[in-house]
């Protein structure tokens, strides 16, 4: 599955502009700081390329904006008006999905207690399903920790967000790898020249 061309172009544009901002910011950075800023601008560029349509992108941007230093970068990449808009959306969105999640949890809890009371003996079939359920809940928890903003989502939207996130990550990796290859080749050739 390859992302559409426009997505790659958008990402690349935003990422490069973010990198330029980083370079003008500070002259002497350790390698780790450089790496962090590169990664951050890549992430933000990817998230902004999604245009606020996915939950994980909003969460990523929101997390980045918490830090004052990074907030500048976010604003630069996003452009001021879009930044405001996404801020508004990101404030509203987790609360909404929280409500939904909470309602479902209440419902499940109420159903669960009723069911538990009636059963005395647990037949093996149901035991197996309990085990399976526990396994999958464990894994969904892990997945929630991986996907940015995953803790607020219910199962269904979590899977959708994961889909989108995986695709964006792959795009990001493709472009970053190409750029890294390019710069390395350039440098190696330059060294050959001398």
């Amino acid at each position: 599955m390859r992302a559409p061309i426009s997505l790659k172009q958008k990402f690349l544009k935003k990422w490069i502009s973010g990198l330029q901002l980083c370079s003008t910011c500070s002259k002497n950075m350790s390698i780790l700081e450089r790496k962090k800023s590169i990664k951050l601008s890549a992430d933000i560029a990817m998230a902004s390329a999604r245009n606020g349509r996915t939950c994980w992108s909003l969460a990523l941007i929101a997390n980045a904006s918490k830090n004052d230093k990074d907030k500048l970068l976010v604003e630069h990449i996003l452009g001021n008006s879009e930044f405001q808009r996404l801020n508004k959306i990101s404030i509203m969105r987790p609360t909404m999905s929280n409500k939904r999640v909470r309602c479902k949890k209440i419902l499940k809890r109420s159903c669960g207690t009723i069911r538990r009371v009636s059963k005395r003996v647990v037949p093996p079939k149901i035991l197996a399903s309990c085990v399976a359920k526990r396994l999958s809940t464990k894994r969904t928890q892990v997945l929630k920790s991986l996907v940015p903003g995953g803790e607020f989502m219910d199962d269904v939207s979590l899977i959708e967000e994961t889909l989108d996130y995986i695709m964006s990550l792959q795009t990001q990796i493709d472009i970053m790898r190409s750029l890294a290859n390019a710069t390395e080749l350039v440098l190696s050739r330059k060294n050959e020249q001398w």
Partner: protein
Amino acid sequence: MEPDVGTGPRSITIQPSLDQNALDSLQFNEEIQHLMTVPPENANSFTALLELPAPQAMELLHHSPESNASAAQPYHFSGGANLTFPSNIALIERAARFSVFAAAADNNNNNSPETTGSVPSNSSGNLGKVKNEPAESDSNHDNPNSPQPSQNQKLMKRKEREKKAKATTKKTKSGANDSNEDAEKLPYVHVRARRGQATDSHSLAERARREKINARMKLLQELVPGCSKISGTALVLDEIINHVQSLQRQVEFLSMRLAAVNPRVDVNLESILAAESGSLMDSNYSSMVMPLMWPELQVSGNRQQFEQQWHLDAHHQPAWGREENQNFVTPENSLLSYDSSANSASFHTNHLKMEL
């Protein structure tokens, strides 16, 4: 688009098992409402995501007032014998549409033959919206929605026609589905219960939810390499988690590489533009990034061709000996300012085409 039409406005009909009849429909409705609240600004994205595209949802909306008016009558029917539907045209129409789908579904006894068939085609299709709702339709477990106007009507079960009852040996169940398409109206979902299975609202909702999740998991399985052979949710989730982790690690690694390569964080576009490396022509770049960023390095995969270009763009050569960050040619500078990126890119490609 056949799949869309077929899975389009499906009428939800209830075919309770012969033994059980009434349901706690009001409770079910409330639960559905909980499941279906969507923040308004997401309505657009969700309409894109959902099975029913917005126009078809609107169509259903228009149909529902008529159908609800006559819905009261079938409620009193019992048994599966010759049922006469109310002569409402809308109902008949929808039932007909559903029967087409049900007939198709009856040919397959497994769960998701059409889903898997439609998933690849759909997933290769619009990638702009990642989730593909026609694929998501759990084929024969069809989840049509009949949105109702804001009047608070009870969930009505409608009995199927005789021929449909005969056709389906096993009554299929369609559960609550994404009714997020009508964010403004509260859709009411009519479900069919499997024969011999509990028809209480909670288990129905649970089953609906599970089917939704399963459909999306199939999409994920397609995306993650090596996942389609695995059966079982937990193992698939394992694979997905591994994949996400590996992707994140790759991002870290690549950013470290870039940090190591560059003395400064900026991207030395000038040097890259001036570089003569054939291997820059990754397949990734071939069609999309090139026009934007490095138009001189055209889509050729061969070094030879590139050497040709290199000789032609003779004015770039003196730049080779210079330092990295000098600005040499104004067209390249304009590339860096993304205001006119599109214009300059097109200029360059035309220029090169002429030269070649």
